[in-house]
């Protein structure tokens, strides 16, 4: 028997869910609101929620002071590049782990995941020194490679779980039907794995986009992405909340829009295997 749910109960659940949702979203909303305030309004006590003089001057000044387009293009290049490079390496890896596992496959997967358990700062020094030695500090390509390596375990794990869901017999059937390895991948596997590959791409793009530790530590001017753009508004001349908010809003806007339009894929990607 299904559990009886009264209308009151439903209404209550709805209110609670919306409240939690609002609570989670509030910091972002507050940032966006603050970006339209004057600096004085931004630090007013008690805080003003909506009744302030809306202004675009923060945006104008941020655009004037920094080269937003360069930060944005660096972010796109670093996040996009590391994700695509990661996928190219991870697909064959996940493939062989899912379909021709060896006795050590499980160990390798766990070992890969264990690298995520190390605090990033633990390897900051060696990597920083390596970058200096190789002359690739503040270099976009170096950052693409580093972020790719950092997210690779997650990419492989995600793809591995997706591929595991594809029944091996279907691939064997295609082999019996005369498909070569290339045709098997092209006509049978990829179409079946498209949702998985898409959500993996998306999630890792977002992770790379938001990555701040390495991007802040290993860049200064040339390779600096939007995380550095935000950071540049925080300290030196004291705190300018409104401008900082404007910069933040501009930094998160692209990924927020991307996430909004692809939320279905994302939810599926994140809960895959858990709800089936």
């Amino acid at each position: 028997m299904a559990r009886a749910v009264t209308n009151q109960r439903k209404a209550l659940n709805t209110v609670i869910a919306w409240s939690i949702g609002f609570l989670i979203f509030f910091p972002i909303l507050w940032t966006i609101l603050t970006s339209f305030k004057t600096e004085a309004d931004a630090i007013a006590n008690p805080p003003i929620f909506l009744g302030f003089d809306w202004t675009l001057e923060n945006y104008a000044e941020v655009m004037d002071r920094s080269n937003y387009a360069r930060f944005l293009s660096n972010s796109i290049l670093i996040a996009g590049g590391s994700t695509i490079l990661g996928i190219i390496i991870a697909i064959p890896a996940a493939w062989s782990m899912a379909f021709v596992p060896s006795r050590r496959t499980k160990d390798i997967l766990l070992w890969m995941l264990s690298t995520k358990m190390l605090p990033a700062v633990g390897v900051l020094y060696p990597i920083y020194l390596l970058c200096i030695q190789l002359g690739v500090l503040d270099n976009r390509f170096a950052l693409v490679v580093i972020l790719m390596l950092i997210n690779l375990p997650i990419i492989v794990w995600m793809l591995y779980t997706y591929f595991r869901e594809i029944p091996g017999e279907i691939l064997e059937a295609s082999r019996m039907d005369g498909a070569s390895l290339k045709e098997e991948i092209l006509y049978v596997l990829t179409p079946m794995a498209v949702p998985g590959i898409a959500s993996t791409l998306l999630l890792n793009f977002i992770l790379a986009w938001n990555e701040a530790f390495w991007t802040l530590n290993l860049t200064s001017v040339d390779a600096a992405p939007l995380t550095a753009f935000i950071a540049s508004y925080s300290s030196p001349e004291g705190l300018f909340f409104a401008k900082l908010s404007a910069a933040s809003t501009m930094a998160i806007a692209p990924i927020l829009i991307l996430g909004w339009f692809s939320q279905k894929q994302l939810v599926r990607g994140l809960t895959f295997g858990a709800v089936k």
Partner: protein
Amino acid sequence: MGQITLQQVRKAFGDVEVIPPLDLNINDGEFVVFVGPSGCGKSTLLRLIAGLEDVSGGMISIDGNDATALPPAKRGLAMVFQSYALYPHMTVRKNIAFPMRMAGMDQAEQDRRIEGAAKALNLTDYLDRRPGQLSGGQRQRVAIGRAIVREPSAFLFDEPLSNLDAALRHGMRLEIAELHKRLDTTMIYVTHDQIEAMTLADKIVVLQAGVIEQVGSPMELYNSPRNVFVAGFIGSPKMNLLTGTEASNRGAHTVGIRPEHIDVSATEGTWKGTVGVAEHLGSDTFFHVHVEGMQEPMTIRASGDLTMSHGDTIYLTPDEQRFHKFDNAGLRVE
């Protein structure tokens, strides 16, 4: 053509030898069934023939050509899987067309064959649906259709009916038998169900632990099982196997008598016992009888109108001519 010969074929996974060296000859047009308990290596053997697994030794030849090292696609065989293994993202039409598309066949010929297969398998109305929208029986027919259109030299079936319910299974069994009669192509069929084996096969290969226990026609296996394992495996209900005095009196280590070769009486007979469970099937009744002095209950097949039930005394008389005798190694003695 579809003659398949296995010479000293063996398969090991690591240190575990699942199929010790084995010889088998399958003639063109034959319907061969591999039967055995689960884990006996019958599916592995089929996969070796298909090329989905590599042999660890020996040679497989198809129509006289060495196929041992050929990839599955080059062997000219078609396979129907237990899970149907349809391509979920393609319509029925595209599923059936896939092997022809891979072979680069021209579109008109593809369409002609799809129409033909769809008509033969009652799939004409479903060609534009996806596998997810079909019932189990229809999916199985699509899988068969995909195999037929290639006009392979042999069909391989890996427990194709075990995912279907009982009624459908019977219907599909008839369809497969019908298909074999019509196409007259070699078919190799793997099952653990000895009824499927008996009803479909020209030749049954009984396997246990990777070893061929006996090869023969269904009636050969039924009438003269080569050893105790085959005697117990072929036939439903199972043959009654007796050891001890009953066996030594008849000059053997083990004797076997089939449930249908024992007469039943309420008044007199060779053995006296009590009825344990009586399974009334309508046409037949199976009695499980506890005979005095025997450890295992005996199974008897009697006419459906016999009305004995639990606890009744029953007399049994075996047909002495029908006893199967086995020596202490389990091998048949005449």
